[in-house]
């Protein structure tokens, strides 16, 4: 009797999820594959942001894969649908619209969400998050009216965004401190290099400072810092790093620390559940330690490895080649990001 095709469910429509889906389809032509994403639009590649903002391209042209790809590969792309619970014992997911969904093998690739420092939680409504295509579209709508923007933090997404803003002639203030510098280590040498690089690009840098208050004034904002700096700005981006997006795993019994703990085969503590991308904390045999996964290079690679293991291949992870971020002629090494430059 022919073996029954398995049902693979992937939570997350980012680099990890899509890379896994592609590998699964290649390895199992008959499998039932579904990607579930809480985002209302398909995944938008951040590296294309400048192109989106400058060239006014249609957002769909910047999607990871065109929609037709999913049709051709018979992969169900379920957008705007939120997983609220996972029950590994029953091999079931519960979705927010009361749908119960069975899986044979599950990949959690739900990515990360912007980290909101406790001290800024009451200003959440005034801060602009930048995580998906909708955010990009909203930003483009407002672009003409923006003269000055503030980066509350200095994470890689923020730096990349700053690069796009510079190309559009916007002036930028960046508020940096050790809690908002992600995913790089915030040691003195890195900090000094970064400040120098940003200043070369005419970005105002408030180093070792913390945002204390944000007030709405007309169509703009006033941002105040611990060191007494008052910034009049049109928009304040929350760029203080990311944290794994795994709240829905509460009560599932799956082991988590910062992210979901996975072994070198990307397998979680639950049977038939794997995790990849920025929601995962991965064990690397080379390091003999766990490392929080960040960046699209890692996501793509780990998604692929997870899928191969879901297909019963025994494939262990290895560290990705480091990437390079260039700012004002200064180079920074990252693990996980493919690298970018805001100098060109």
């Amino acid at each position: 009797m022919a073996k029954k095709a398995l049902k693979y469910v992937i939570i997350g429509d980012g680099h990890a999820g899509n890379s896994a889906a592609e590998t699964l389809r290649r390895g199992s032509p008959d499998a039932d594959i579904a990607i579930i994403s809480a985002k209302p639009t398909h995944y938008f590649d951040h590296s294309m942001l400048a192109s989106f903002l400058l060239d006014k391209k249609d957002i769909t042209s910047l999607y990871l894969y065109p929609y037709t790809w999913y049709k051709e590969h018979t992969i169900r792309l379920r957008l705007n649908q939120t997983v609220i619970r996972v029950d590994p014992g029953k091999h079931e997911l519960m979705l927010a619209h009361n749908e119960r969904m069975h899986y044979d093998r599950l990949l959690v690739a739900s990515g990360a969400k912007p980290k909101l420092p406790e001290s800024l939680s009451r200003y959440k409504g005034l801060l602009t998050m930048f995580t998906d295509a909708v955010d990009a579209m909203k930003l483009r709508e407002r672009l003409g009216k923006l003269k000055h923007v503030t980066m509350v933090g200095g994470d890689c997404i923020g730096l990349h965004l700053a690069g796009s803003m510079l190309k559009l002639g916007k002036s930028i203030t960046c508020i940096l401190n050790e809690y908002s510098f992600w995913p790089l280590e915030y040691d003195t040498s890195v900090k000094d290099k970064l400040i120098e690089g940003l200043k070369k690009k005419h970005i105002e840098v408030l180093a070792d400072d913390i945002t204390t208050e944000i007030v709405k004034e007309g169509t703009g904002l006033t941002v105040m810092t611990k060191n007494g700096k008052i910034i009049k700005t049109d928009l304040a981006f929350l760029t203080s790093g990311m944290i794994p997006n795994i709240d829905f795993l509460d009560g599932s019994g799956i082991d988590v620390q910062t992210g979901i703990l996975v072994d070198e085969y990307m397998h979680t503590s639950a049977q038939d559940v794997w995790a990849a991308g920025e929601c995962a904390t991965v064990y690397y045999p080379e390091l003999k330690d766990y490392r929080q996964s960040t960046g699209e290079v890692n996501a793509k690679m780990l998604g692929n490895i997870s899928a191969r293991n879901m297909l019963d291949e025994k494939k262990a992870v290895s560290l990705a080649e480091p990437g390079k971020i260039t700012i004002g002629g200064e180079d920074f090494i990252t693990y996980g990001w493919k690298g970018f430059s805001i100098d060109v």
Partner: protein
Amino acid sequence: MGGKGSPLTYEKSLTIEICGSSGDRALAAGEILIKTLSDIGYHVISFDAYPAEIRGFGKTVAHMRAGREFMLSLSRKVDILISLSDRYAIEQLRNLNDEGVVLFDNRPNNVVYEDLPHDADQTEAHRLGPGVYTEKEGWKTPTKDDVSIAGHLGPGMYLYGIPLYQLSQKTTNESRSRNIVVLGAVAALFNVPEKEFINNLTAKLGKKDKSIESIIAAFEEGRRYVIENIVKLDPYSFEKLSVDRKSYRLMDGNKAVAQAAIDMGCKLYAGYPITPATKIMEILSDELPRHGGVVVQTEDEISAIGHVTGAGFAGVRAMTATSGPGFCLMTEFIGYNVMSENPIVVVDSQRGGPATGLPTKTEQSDLNHALFAGNGDTPRIVVAPTSAKECYQWTAEAFYLAEKYQTPVIVLMDLFLSLSVRNVSLDPIPDYKKGGNKFPTQEDMKLYLRQKITDDGVSPRALPGLENGYQAVSGLEQNEYGTPVYDELSHTRMTEKRFRKIQTALENDVPLPQRIGVSGRVKVGVISWGSTTGAVMDALDSILKQGKSVAMLKVIVINPLREKEIQAFFDDCEKVLVPELNYEGQFANWLSMHFQKKLYRYNKVAARPITHDEIEEEINRLLEE
């Protein structure tokens, strides 16, 4: 609401479906929505689908199309699908555009769905019914039972979840107002002005619903939810148009027929209920008594046409309306009225046949019956309006022609025409059309001959009460006095006379068929009748904009045919397409009896109207062949 929420203007027409189970009030929501879109200046057309059986369950779909430009037909593809019942709405996804929008209830009442693989047997899933989850009991019914529409969208479609059940409970303490909550969501999501919506809600529900305030609260809650929670991404949007549509009225074909009957001075309507014609009787039973008339619900259709026949003899304008099965029963009286030269108007709103057939589905398959029903040589006039506006115009015309030519006139509608709602502007009926009877002159009354042989075939018709206007009528062949005769000469002369007056009608009262499109020689010509004409006109509109060599001929009077003009059209066409909603190609067959032209038939028995995009595809196919 962010994203593309700023009011964009969608230049093309939009097709919307509201799908639910009977009891979800999907049709009521559709009625309010279509009226609102009409009120803000859009041309609209709507057509609902519902189960044949009278019961509390089954799929119902309110289907509507709205656009800036005048339109006559529906689109096959849907742009916005609103699900009040996922189990039924999933079936509708096959018609949704690749970039279509789905609105669904993302907090249904404890119903938990099991998603199914692509190739799952949906029918089987539906048969088993929904699974139910409660906190106390957990899963109560089998798990592999139902599906959520969320799991079946194509990758490029837009999904908006709204907690319809929760918001309905919150505002009205019941779940049945989900249809109102979703209208609020539609208002916010697609920029339909709130004021017009609320006016129509009040007009529709206010009279009979004491809790109108909570209904409006349900509407507002749906609207508020979208504004606060939904990121609009799709490109579809309406806006209030600055056009004057005060002269437009929202009506379906049935209402147009009833209105024409009233305006033409019809004093008796007799009928037996049958889908889709019943509504004509319902309207007239309200309206006719106010205009000095009477409605009689008879024991069957034979009796109904019998009443109308009697009214004709009494000189009273009368009408009956039915559908195919009822029209079968009326057949004997058609011949009787041909023989006795009595004016009657019979409306046949066609539905899927034969026999009881498909009571709630449209078809154009009664044409043979309308043209030929009856024994002997039974000439009659058959007209087939193509829109609600023409239903009004040609029902009025039917009264005029019936009276003027003392013959049955059959108005051939169909379920789509009967029940599809459009905003129409009616042309007033000229006064001379309101009395067509050929009264006898004083000279005639010296020796009154009810069946007098005349050049035009029409005999003077004395109405009861006219001195010396005695007459005998029966179904027997007669001489000029009305006395039964069976000789060769009398039968020949009388038969010729009965056919001659139809020829007179053709010469004097049958308008030229309307030609639309490229004049002179064309590669493809389309000749159409009945409700399919709307789809042809919309298709032609699109094709002509592409500069292609096409034209169409709209034929409303099916018998007698304007042969000369039709022949001229055929001569101009390299290929002639005849689209119709029946299997045999009944109109094509009728044309083939009169013309030698090769006809390209396009026949469907799809239990739904032919759409303009289907016709467009077929025309293009013929152009490329």
